[in-house]
């Protein structure tokens, strides 16, 4: 084995781990707070990556899909307001029917006229093709943020309203799987299931440091993802919102007695987790330039492994676990080949769980002291 390649492989492993970190932390945030494994996390990661690809490649339909997602969420919010408003039941019924009719007309307009490509052509003319990656970031963030609200409404909140018990996590888990399938198949039916490639808007910018080649976008991504996760953990540790989040994580029934509006904070958690996934997805497209409808599954299994390895619900555990997994993956491709790369990853996870069932930094009691 050629050991001179080792430093390069370690660097590559760190870079890959940087992507996993954000997805693992997104999982961790939701499992730590709501005791619920949210399977829409990988779907949102994949969606952001594919949307970024689609905008870079100039697929106007991505804009149509975003418009539909925004429409759904706006309709949902108006419906919520309507339901809570002090109006006679008949007015509410008419309002709800009008809302549904309006949404259907809007949906029909978008689906039949497909304004995306035209909007795209106009934007390209106005900003220039180099502005596409900025547009991609905006579209990916916007779509994922509004979808997070939609998902919160129909996984966590729906189940809580229906069964009154946020700790019953099997039900939102299943409905989150439903969202995963819907999002994946929306992408597959739009762009197919093959690999989708593009060119990095930043080219192959790189520099050498001794024997190691650093790709500039990858390095910046790693720094960015670590900075975001660090900022998040400082937020959890020191701010009023962070304290509220930790109090909900420990005692969801006591936090409201302090004046914490749990039903308003849970959507914030979903959006934060969604934006972490979106950032990871965008960086994935820019760095690796090849995406497909299934990258979510791969990243999710690896990120879940990282999260479990580090200790469930522990942000720093997720970071170390994800970095470790990224490293093991790259090293095992380097040493035993890509065919067998899964064996070292899951073997390591199994070994560590036998020795330390709580993960590297986990607490024994799930639900207590998770941040």
């Amino acid at each position, binding site marked *: 084995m050629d050991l001179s390649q080792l430093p390069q492989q370690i660097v590559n492993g760190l870079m890959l781990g940087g992507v996993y970190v954000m997805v693992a932390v997104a999982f961790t945030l939701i499992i730590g707070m709501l005791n619920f494994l949210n399977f829409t996390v990988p779907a949102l990661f994949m969606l952001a990556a594919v949307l970024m690809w689609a905008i870079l490649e100039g697929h106007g339909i991505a804009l149509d899909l975003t418009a539909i997602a925004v429409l759904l969420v706006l309709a949902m919010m108006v419906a919520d307001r309507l339901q809570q408003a002090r109006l006679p039941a008949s007015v509410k019924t008419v309002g709800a029917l009008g809302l549904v009719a309006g949404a259907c007309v809007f949906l029909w307009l978008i689906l039949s006229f497909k304004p995306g490509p035209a909007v795209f052509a106009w934007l390209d003319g106005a900003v220039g093709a180099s502005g596409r990656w900025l547009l991609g970031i905006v579209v990916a963030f916007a779509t994922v943020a509004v979808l997070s609200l939609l998902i919160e409404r129909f996984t966590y909140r729906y189940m809580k309203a229906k069964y009154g018990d946020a700790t019953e996590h099997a039900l939102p888990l299943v409905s989150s799987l439903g969202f995963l399938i819907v999002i994946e198949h929306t992408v597959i039916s739009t762009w197919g299931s093959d690999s989708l490639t593009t060119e990095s808007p930043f080219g192959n910018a790189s520099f050498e440091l001794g024997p190691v080649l650093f790709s500039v976008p990858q390095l910046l991504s790693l720094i960015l993802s670590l900075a975001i996760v660090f900022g998040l953990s400082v937020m959890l540790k020191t701010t009023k919102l962070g*304290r509220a989040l930790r109090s909900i994580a*420990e005692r969801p029934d006591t936090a409201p007695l*302090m004046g914490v509006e749990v039903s308003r904070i849970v959507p914030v958690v979903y959006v934060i987790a969604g934006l972490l996934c979106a950032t990871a997805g965008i960086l994935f497209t820019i760095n690796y330039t090849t995406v497909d409808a299934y990258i979510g599954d791969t990243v999710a299994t690896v990120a879940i492994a990282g999260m479990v390895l580090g200790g469930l619900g522990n942000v720093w555990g997720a970071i170390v676990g994800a970095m470790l997994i990224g490293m093991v993956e790259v090293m095992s491709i380097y040493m035993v080949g890509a065919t067998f790369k899964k064996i070292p990853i899951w073997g390591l996870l199994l070994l560590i769980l036998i020795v330390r069932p709580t993960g590297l930094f986990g607490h024994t009691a799930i639900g207590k002291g998770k941040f």
Partner: protein
Amino acid sequence: MLLEVERLDVRYGRNHAIRALDLELAEGEIVTVLGANGAGKSSLLKAVQGTVKPAAGAVRLNGETVTGWSSPKRVRAGLTLVPEGRQIFVSLTVHENLQMGAYSRSDNFDREIDEIYERFPNLAARRDMLASVLSGGEQQMLAISRALLARPRIMMLDEPSLGLSPILVQSLFDLIADLNRDGLTILLVEQNTHMALQTAHRGYVLELGATVLSGTAEELLADDRLEEAYLGGN
């Protein structure tokens, strides 16, 4: 009346926990709610605080109907509950627990926290430690201090003496009387009947979710039926 509970009904499925209960609390009073296990005392406090939805009846705070309000909204309106079993956040530090108590406020509360540390030096000594290191008595002090930081008009306490040694129970009831002298109105649910009646001005005795006896503390202490309510006999 600062707090009025009118014909309140609480049901958990088939279980009828509170039946058409009336209760009044005037400004500056200590009122205690007594009764055996399962008499509906905790359900009453939960319905007043808004963590349990009543099936019927009304809760009025200072004349305003708050029955449909969420728990956090009632906290902001001056109603606070020290829950059974203290429920402090053991994954937060002592200081963070106190900050959580003031969550609903946007003004500066540093001076109030300092006053609490002066009153309870044990809390001050452990301010940056996780609240899990506190003893049962210290946890109860923290739970009450945390509730005080919401700057309530009414503080409800659910079995605060549970699991405390006799000396601590005495200092707990002294604290409750102190807070009341400073102007806080208190609704106290207790198993420790005699201590509660020595501190309170008035009391209600519940049985199977309904009031069977009420009156001033002196009247209740002298009434033989009080024992019967606890023994569940007729």
